[in-house]
């Protein structure tokens, strides 16, 4: 299989990239690692007139900390997140989730930003970023724009990014006494999730100060389980409170029955994973991770 013909540009700078997109954004697709886009091109689900390869742009890959948040460059490879010893301490949900994305070879080339912009409802990063309350930083010729995670995912393979914008950075708030977990059910290594659940909690003494829950593969987009989050906020994370949050998250999920399982089954996996994830997350938050 090979893609339909397209023009190819590999800009040397971000300024050049956004200039190309200002002129031809509507007919272009931005490519980072290409691990989502190239399969789409090969299957001809996507036939852009122009592919703008930003994979070579400098300064868009890497993980850093500043002003109470973690910054992940859009071109950071999944493998770099997976192997980051700093993240294992600061934000263990990130390497934990990275480990379950596709397979090691794809993780060597695929990028966090590319995966997020691809916005596959079965994608892992979207759910993780919703749980973490991340912001997405987009750049266009008119400047920088910050899009809150909850506003970013608008539907299957559809985001709030405009055709003239490039995602440059993901900003994740990091709080003390917080912890997270990512639980994913997949039929085999490399498969998309049957169901996956990202959970992040911040504790204030014995109570939950903030809870984030993101769901993978159970709706037309990565879903933020807001009712479940509210049911946790301000309460001590007892078994009963956690069970109620898990019930609410399962109720919010709208999975389709398919080869990976029935809708009822997937909803129940959401319930179990929210429960399991919250217990891990609370334990990690108490350890100060």
């Amino acid at each position, binding site marked *: 299989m*090979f893609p339909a013909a397209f023009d190819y540009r590999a800009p040397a700078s971000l300024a050049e990239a956004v200039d190309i997109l200002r002129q031809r954004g509507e007919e272009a697709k931005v490519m980072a690692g290409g691990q989502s886009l190239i399969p789409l091109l090969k299957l001809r689900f996507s036939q852009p007139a122009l592919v703008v390869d930003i994979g070579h742009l400098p300064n868009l890959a890497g993980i850093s900390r500043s002003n109470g948040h973690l910054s992940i460059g859009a071109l950071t490879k999944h493998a770099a997140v997976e192997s980051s010893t700093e993240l294992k301490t600061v934000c263990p949900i990130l390497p934990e989730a990275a480990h379950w994305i*596709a397979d*090691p*070879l794809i993780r060597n080339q695929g990028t966090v930003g590319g995966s997020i912009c691809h916005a596959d409802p079965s994608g892992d990063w979207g759910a993780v970023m919703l749980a973490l309350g991340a912001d997405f930083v987009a750049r266009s010729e008119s400047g920088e724009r910050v899009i809150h995670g909850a506003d970013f995912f608008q539907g299957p393979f559809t985001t709030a990014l405009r055709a003239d914008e490039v995602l440059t950075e993901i900003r994740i708030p990091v709080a003390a006494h917080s912890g997270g977990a990512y639980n994913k059910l997949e039929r085999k*290594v*490399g498969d998309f999730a049957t169901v996956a659940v990202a959970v992040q909690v911040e504790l204030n003494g014995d109570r939950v100060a903030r809870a984030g829950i993101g769901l993978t593969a159970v709706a037309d987009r990565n879903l933020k389980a807001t009712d479940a989050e509210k049911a946790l906020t301000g309460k001590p994370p007892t078994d009963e409170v956690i069970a109620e949050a898990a019930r609410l998250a399962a109720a919010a999920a709208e999975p389709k029955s398919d080869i990976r399982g029935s809708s009822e089954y997937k909803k129940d996996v959401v319930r179990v994973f929210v429960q399991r994830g919250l217990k891990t997350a609370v334990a990690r938050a108490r350890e100060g991770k």
Partner: protein
Amino acid sequence: MKVTLKVNGAEHTGDVEPRVLLVDFIRTNLRLTGTHIGCDTSGCGACTVLVDGTPLKSCTLLAVQVSGRSITTVEGLAAGAGMSPIQTGFHEEHGLQCGFCTPGMMLVGTALLEHNPNPTDEEIRWAISGNICRCTGYMNIVKAIQHAAAINAAAAKAPAAEAVAAGGGK
């Protein structure tokens, strides 16, 4: 578009459409057919090559995307007439049956041992989890990679030939 690649140490240039996949460039333009096309959907790893030492799936890369980079294919593993440790491992441990997945498995194994010279069986299994052996010969593939690790370890311990020639290292 012009593509320049260093493949197994030799520089190659080609003029290809942007849509040409790296695997097709390697097989068709360079006539290096040791890199296989299996599933063609980035699931099986038969097309694995090393790009600057990192194993990637060449069916899911454009040739133009990796222009300027250094590629190692299975043809680049052997040092002259001799086999590389990973090749010896696959030979000694019966690490292949039909052989279709073998180039990818050997390249992934080579890259693994490069940064983890003494892997556990579990680590090897994770490393090859993007490569499918349709004959299900995984047990021997793991043994083959362990065999290569042992060869490397023995070579590291052995005194250098120059040291022996100089009368040392006995």
